[in-house]
C-alpha cells in the first residue's frame, strides 16, 4: 500500500548535523514566510496576483525568486565542497565523508544548472522577450504557467530529501550508469534526481515550444527577422536547441528510470545493456544545454554594450549568423565529453575539430562587442562591469576549452580539476555574469526602480576577483594531476596551499553574494529615490524601453508598426504627436490549473520514487482531468477598458 515508504523508519534513524541544519532552515523558512503573509493579510493578493497569474511578467518574477533561492543553496553546497577539499588536502578528515561529498556535488551541479541557470534564463525571457518583440503576451499563456509550475516541482523534488531524510544521488550531476543503475545505487537518491530533472525538463521543453512560437509568430507588424533585437535572436537560437535536445534528455532519463523501476536493461552492465548509449544521449543534450544557457547571455551583452556605448550594435548581420552557426555547431560536438571512452582516433578528430570551430563565431561576437564600444560614449554602469568581467574571464575559459578539445590533451586533463575550472569559467564568467548583467540592466523595467549602482559595482567586482582567485588555483591543481570529485588528497601531493587560496576566492565570491543581497534590500527600501519614472532610464534603443516601468499588464497600449532595427531609438529622434484613441484590450484571465497540475506532478513523482503504484496512477488521472477542464473552459479572457488604459498611459506620459 505504501510501497517503499514502509521501510521508511530505518532511513530517518540517523540524522547528521548538516542535514539537520538544512531541515531547520527549510522548514523554518517556509513557516516564517507563511507567517509573514498571514500577518500582512496577503494570501488573496498572493493567490490572484501571483500564483494563478498567466501574465509572463509575473511568472518571470516568480522564476527569478526561486532561482535566487536555489542560487543560495547551490552556493552553500559549493562552500561546503571547497571547505572540505581545503581541509581534506591538508591531512584533516573534514566534515563530509566520501559518500556525503558525492551527494553534495551532485546536488550542487544539478541545482546550479537546472534550477539556477535555467530559472534565471526563463525568468529574464518571460519578463523581457515579449516586450522586446512588441508583443502583448507569449503565444500560449497557460502553457507558460504550467512550465513554471513544473520547474517548481523539480525544485521541490530535489529538496524533498532534505526534509524527509534519506539520501540524494551520489552519482554526479549526469548520473552515469551503471553506477546510477539499481544494482550500484539501490536507494531512492537517484530516483529523486531523475524525477526532479525529468519534470523540470518537460517544463523547459514546453517553454521552448512556447517561446519559439512567440518569436516566430507574435512579432510586431513590421519587425522582420532582420530587424529583431539581438537578444530575441539569441533566445530564438537557444529555444531551437531546447526543441532539438530536451526530448533526448527526456528519453535518456525515462530509460534510466525504466531500468531502475521495471528491471529493464538499457544501460545495465549485463543482459546486453549498453551504458555508453546513455552517455551519448545525455551529452547529446548536455553539450547543447550549455549553449542554451550561454546564447541568451550573449544576447544580453549585445543589448547592454550597444546601449551603454550609445551606438548601434556593430555587425548586426554577422551577430545573427554567429548565433545561427553556434546553434548548429553546438549540436555536433557532444562527443568531446568522452574522448577517452574508446571512440577511436578518427571520430575523436572530427569532434575535436568541430569543437574548435565554435571558437570562430564566438570570436566574431567578441570583436563585434569591442567594435561597438570603439569610439562610443561608453558609460561604465554596473551592467558594463559585469560585461568587462565576462569579456576577460570568458575569453580565458574559451582558450582552456580549446585546449580540452584537443583529444591528446584531453586524455591528460579528462576528469581533472582543470576541467572543473574550465566549465566554471564558462558558467560563472559567462552564464552567471551574463544574467546578472541582464538583471541589473532590466531591473527598472521589471520593478520600476533601479538597483543601487555603487553596491552593484562592488558586488560585480567581488564576483570577478573572487572567481579568478577561486578558480585559477583549480586550473593549476588540474595541471598538477588533481582529479575531480575527491574529498581528500594526500598531503604529500602539496595541493593544500592552492586549495587554501581557492577557498579565499570562494569567500570573496561569498562577499559578492552578500553585497548583492544588500543591494537588493537597500534598493527596495529606497525605491522612491531610485524610481524610474521615464520608462527609459539608460537611453535605450529597443521597444521594451518605450513603455512605462514596470510595463503595464497589456505591455503596449497601441501596436504601431516597426520600421527600424533600433525602433525606439529612431522614434525618440522624431517623436510622433498623433493622438490615436485607445481600444479595449483582451488579455488572458488567471488560472490555478497550472499549479494544480504541478501539485499532482509532484505527488506522481513521489509515488514513483517510493513505488506506490496506486497514487502514481491516480495522479495521472487527476492531471488529465485538469488538462481536460482547462481545454473545456471557454471563459479565459478578460477585457481592459479603453478608459482604464487611457488613465494608466497618461499617468506616466509615455508614447
Amino acid at each position, binding site marked *: 500500500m505504501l510501497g517503499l515508504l514502509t521501510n521508511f523508519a530505518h532511513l530517518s534513524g540517523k540524522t547528521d548535523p548538516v542535514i539537520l541544519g538544512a531541515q531547520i532552515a527549510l522548514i523554518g523558512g517556509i513557516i516564517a514566510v507563511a507567517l509573514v503573509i498571514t500577518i500582512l493579510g496577503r494570501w488573496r493578493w498572493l493567490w490572484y496576483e501571483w500564483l494563478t497569474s498567466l501574465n509572463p511578467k509575473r511568472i518571470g518574477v516568480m522564476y527569478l525568486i526561486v532561482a535566487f533561492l536555489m542560487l543560495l543553496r547551490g552556493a552553500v553546497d559549493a562552500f561546503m565542497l571547497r571547505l572540505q577539499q581545503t581541509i581534506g588536502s591538508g591531512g584533516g578528515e573534514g566534515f563530509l565523508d566520501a559518500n556525503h561529498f558525492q551527494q553534495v556535488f551532485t546536488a550542487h551541479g544539478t541545482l546550479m544548472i537546472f534550477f539556477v541557470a535555467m530559472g534565471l534564463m526563463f525568468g529574464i525571457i518571460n519578463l523581457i522577450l515579449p516586450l522586446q518583440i512588441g508583443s502583448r503576451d507569449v503565444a500560449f499563456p497557460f502553457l507558460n504557467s504550467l512550465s513554471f509550475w513544473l520547474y517548481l516541482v523539480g525544485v521541490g523534488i530535489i529538496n524533498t530529501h532534505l526534509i524527509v531524510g534519506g539520501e540524494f544521488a551520489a552519482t554526479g550531476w549526469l548520473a552515469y550508469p551503471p553506477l546510477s543503475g539499481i544494482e550500484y545505487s539501490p536507494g531512492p537518491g537517484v530516483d529523486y534526481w531523475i524525477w526532479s530533472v525529468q519534470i523540470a525538463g518537460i517544463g523547459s521543453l514546453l517553454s521552448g515550444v512556447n517561446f519559439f512560437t512567440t518569436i516566430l*509568430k507574435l512579432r510586431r507588424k513590421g519587425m522582420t527577422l532582420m530587424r529583431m533585437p539581438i537578444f530575441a535572436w539569441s533566445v530564438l537560437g537557444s529555444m531551437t536547441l531546447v526543441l532539438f535536445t530536451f*526530448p533526448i534528455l527526456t528519453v535518456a532519463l525515462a530509460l534510466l528510470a525504466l531500468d531502475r523501476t521495471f528491471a*529493464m536493461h538499457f544501460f545495465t552492465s549485463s543482459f546486453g545493456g549498453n551504458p555508453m548509449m546513455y552517455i551519448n544521449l545525455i551529452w547529446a543534450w548536455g553539450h547543447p544545454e550549455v549553449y542554451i544557457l550561454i546564447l541568451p547571455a550573449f544576447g544580453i551583452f549585445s543589448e547592454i554594450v550597444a546601449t551603454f556605448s550609445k551606438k548601434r550594435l556593430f555587425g548586426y548581420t554577422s551577430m545573427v549568423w554567429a548565433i545561427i552557426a553556434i546553434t548548429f555547431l553546438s549540436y555536433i560536438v557532444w562527443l568531446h565529453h568522452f574522448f577517452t571512452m574508446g571512440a577511436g582516433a578518427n571520430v575523436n578528430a572530427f569532434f575535436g575539430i568541430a569543437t574548435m570551430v565554435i571558437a570562430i563565431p564566438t570570436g566574431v561576437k567578441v570583436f563585434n562587442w569591442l567594435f561597438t564600444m570603439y569610439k562610443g560614449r561608453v558609460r561604465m554602469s554596473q551592467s558594463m562591469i559585469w560585461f568587462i568581467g565576462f569579456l576577460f574571464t570568458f575569453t580565458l575559459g574559451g582558450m582552456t576549452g580549446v585546449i580540452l578539445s584537443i583529444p591528446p590533451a584531453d586524455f591528460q586533463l579528462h576528469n581533472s580539476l582543470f576541467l572543473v575550472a574550465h566549465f566554471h569559467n564558462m558558467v560563472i564568467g559567462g552564464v552567471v555574469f551574463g544574467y546578472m548583467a541582464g538583471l541589473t540592466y532590466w531591473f527598472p523595467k521589471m520593478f520600476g526602480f533601479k538597483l543601487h549602482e555603487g553596491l552593484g559595482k562592488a558586488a560585480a567586482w567581488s564576483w570577478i576577483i573572487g572567481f579568478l582567485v577561486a578558480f585559477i588555483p583549480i586550473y593549476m591543481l588540474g595541471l598538477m594531476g588533481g582529479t575531480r570529485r575527491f574529498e581528500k588528497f594526500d598531503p604529500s601531493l602539496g595541493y593544500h596551499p592552492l586549495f587554501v587560496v581557492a577557498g579565499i576566492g570562494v569567500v570573496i565570491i561569498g562577499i559578492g553574494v552578500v553585497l548583492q543581497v544588500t543591494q537588493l534590500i537597500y534598493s527596495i527600501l529606497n525605491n522612491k529615490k531610485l524610481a524610474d519614472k521615464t520608462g527609459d532610464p539608460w537611453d535605450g534603443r529597443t521597444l521594451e524601453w518605450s513603455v512605462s516601468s514596470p510595463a503595464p499588464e497589456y505591455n503596449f497600449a497601441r501596436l504601431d508598426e516597426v520600421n527600424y532595427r533600433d525602433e525606439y531609438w529612431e522614434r525618440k529622434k522624431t517623436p510622433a504627436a498623433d493622438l490615436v484613441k485607445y481600444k479595449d*484590450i483582451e488579455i488572458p484571465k488567471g488560472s490555478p490549473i497550472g499549479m494544480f497540475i504541478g501539485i499532482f506532478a509532484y505527488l506522481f513523482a513521489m509515488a514513483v520514487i517510493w513505488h506506490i503504484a496506486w497514487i502514481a496512477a491516480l495522479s495521472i488521472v487527476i492531471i488529465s482531468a485538469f488538462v481536460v477542464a482547462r481545454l473545456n473552459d471557454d471563459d479565459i479572457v478578460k477585457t481592459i477598458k479603453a478608459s482604464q488604459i487611457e488613465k494608466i498611459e497618461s499617468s506616466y506620459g509615455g508614447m
Partner: protein
Amino acid sequence: MSNTDREDEQMREEKTTFGFWVYLMTDCMLFAGLFATYAVLRNNTYGGPSGFELFNQKFVLTETLILLTSSFICGLVVISARKKDMDRLVRYLAITGLLGVIFLGMEIYEFRSLINEGNSWATSAFLSSFFVLVGTHGLHVFVGIVWMLLLQWQLLFKGFKPIVLTRVKLFGMFWHFLDVVWIFIFTFVYLLGGLKL
C-alpha cells in the same frame, strides 16, 4: 473595426497550428532517440530470442493496414470539418477511433503473448528497447483515442466553434504523425528485424 483589440480568430488558429507543428517536431526527436537506442541494442539479445524468432509479420501487417485505414478516414474527418458536415464528421471520427482501439488491442495482445512466452522486457536489452519503442507509440495512440472521445463530446456540446474546429485539425495532424512513426517502426523493427541476417 471593432472597439476591442483582440487577437483575431485567424491569428489564434495560425499560432496554435504552428505551435503544434513545433510540438510534433519535438515528439519526432523523442522517437528519434528511441529509434537510435533500438538500433544500438537490437542485436544485444543476451542469448535470448531475436526479432527473427519472435515477430509474426502477418499479424503486424494487419495491424499496419488497420492503422493506415484509420489514418485515411482521419483525412475524411478533417475534410468534413472543413465542410462543416457534422454528421459525417462525428461518424468518421468514431470510425477512426474504433480502428485505433483495434490496433491498440492487437498490440496489447502481441505484448501479452510475448510476455507469456517468457520474453518480457526484462529478458534482454533488445527486448527492453523493443517494448519501449513500440509501447511509446502505443501510448501515443492511446492518448489519441482519449483525445478523439473528448472531441466527440465537445462537438456534441459546443458545435462548430472555431476552437473546436482547430482541435479537429490538430488531431488530424497528430494521427497522421503517429501513422508515419508506425511506418518507420514497421519497416525497421518488424521488416528488417524479421530478416535472418
